[in-house]
């Protein structure tokens, strides 16, 4: 009798330790959680994995926890649960999660999968950049953490090494209003033409920005974040300031022409979105100009 080869081609670890051991022993195994990227490639014969490693049975990856100043989101938490369970503490990420695909996709797709795919257009990335999230990565050799700004290295490339799994994302709780804006052809099932997240930190009097689908990786906009805001006299905020922020965000983008839009359109749309997002967070934090 031959060994049951086919059985060995799909690994179903029950906990993280077992998953990391499986991955070390079978480096050819492709990790799969929601399958919303991988299974499309499999169905279209773009890839034919000899082995797969199922992450959906690992309870610790599918839980989130309150760590005080931050939420630790297991990499296997779905977008549907981020929308339903984390909208008050992580409004920017929840807003982005709500724009992902459709209900069917949000029921399967995970934040960890979004990061592992590392598409420049991934909807989860801009809010993580705007809030300065941290990625937790594990392998059989140990654990490490990577700031989100250092995670992406190129289109669909990241610092994730073979044998490593993303275990969690640590996202600081919102300390002020947050916005996520996404440009697409309809309200569902679209890959962003461009997207933008803004987070206002009222404690540190700091602005954070994340840009999606307008560069080889998701981007921050440090120069835009440093814009001088009238913290002492919030009523001095005006359209010129919002438009200057828009210009700086557009300048931080490194878009290309592709099937979804031109580079020029992306820059223009980002400037509009950024000005709008800043007006919205400022108004949410300080009330309308007329109200002061």
């Amino acid at each position, binding site marked *: 009798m031959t060994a049951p080869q086919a*059985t060995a081609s*799909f690994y179903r670890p029950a906990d993280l330790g077992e998953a990391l051991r499986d991955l070390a022993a079978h480096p050819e195994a492709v990790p*799969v959680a929601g399958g919303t990227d991988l*299974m499309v490639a499999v169905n*279209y014969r773009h890839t*034919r994995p000899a*082995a797969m490693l199922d992450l*959906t049975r690992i309870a610790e990856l599918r839980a989130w926890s309150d760590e005080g100043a931050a939420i630790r989101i297991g990499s296997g938490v779905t977008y549907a649960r981020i929308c339903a369970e984390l909208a008050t503490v992580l409004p920017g990420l929840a807003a982005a999660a709500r724009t992902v695909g459709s209900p069917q996709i949000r*029921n399967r797709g995970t934040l960890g999968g979004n990061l592992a795919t590392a598409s420049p257009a991934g909807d989860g990335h801009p809010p993580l950049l705007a809030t300065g999230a941290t990625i937790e990565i594990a392998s059989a050799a140990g654990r490490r953490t990577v700031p989100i700004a250092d995670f992406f290295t190129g289109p669909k490339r990241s610092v994730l090494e073979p044998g490593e799994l993303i275990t969690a994302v640590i996202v600081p709780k919102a300390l002020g209003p947050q916005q996520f804006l996404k440009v697409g052809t309809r309200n*569902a099932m679209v890959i962003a033409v461009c997207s933008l997240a803004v987070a206002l930190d009222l404690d540190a009097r700091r602005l954070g920005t994340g840009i999606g689908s307008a560069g080889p990786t998701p981007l921050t906009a440090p120069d835009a974040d440093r814009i001088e805001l009238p913290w002492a006299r919030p009523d001095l905020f005006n359209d010129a300031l919002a438009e200057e922020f828009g210009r700086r965000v557009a300048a931080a983008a490194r878009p290309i022409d592709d099937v979804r839009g031109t580079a020029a359109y992306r820059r223009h749309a980002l400037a509009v979105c950024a000005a709008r997002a800043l007006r919205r967070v400022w108004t949410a934090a300080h009330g309308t100009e007329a109200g002061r």
Partner: protein
Amino acid sequence: MRVELRIDGEAAVAEIDRPGESLLSTLRDRLGLTGTKNACEQGECGSCTVLLDGDPVCSCLVATAQCEGREVKTVVGAVPRPVRDAFIACGAVQCGFCTPGLLVSVADLLEREPDPRDAQIREALAGNLCRCTGYEKIIDAVHAAAEAMSSEAISDGVPRVPARSHLHHNQWINVSNIPRAAGDSTEDTP
């Protein structure tokens, strides 16, 4: 490899020979359960929507091997009778290819939200594409089904319970209050 799961309330076994075989492929090609439709195989269209442990998912994006011990409900087992009848009564079915997926999504929506507003219906059905109806009649059908299911729960004199647990797909339901023509539906629905 052998995968054991439950499909529409019954135990099922699938012998699959590659790790990436989709649940959709297993349902249709191995088990002959063709109620679930195959259209885009990339999660765009929703034709293959099933409930996996109660949540609507695209079965084309689920690896069958991930379903060991899981419960799958297709259009056969997931959809309360009033939902199906409302689609017929309201003209929400034309070519019919998207219908099984839509019925599963609507069944899930009405279990979570027994009386949804138009905006909630549109968001819940955003992952189900229909190229015939223009969606208006589908939205009429959701309202009609919601009304039929709520009046049924009341007429039984029992408190409302989650739809799927008390409405079985083969249970006889009184559909007298579903509008007979699509034009009637606007008057009867909220």
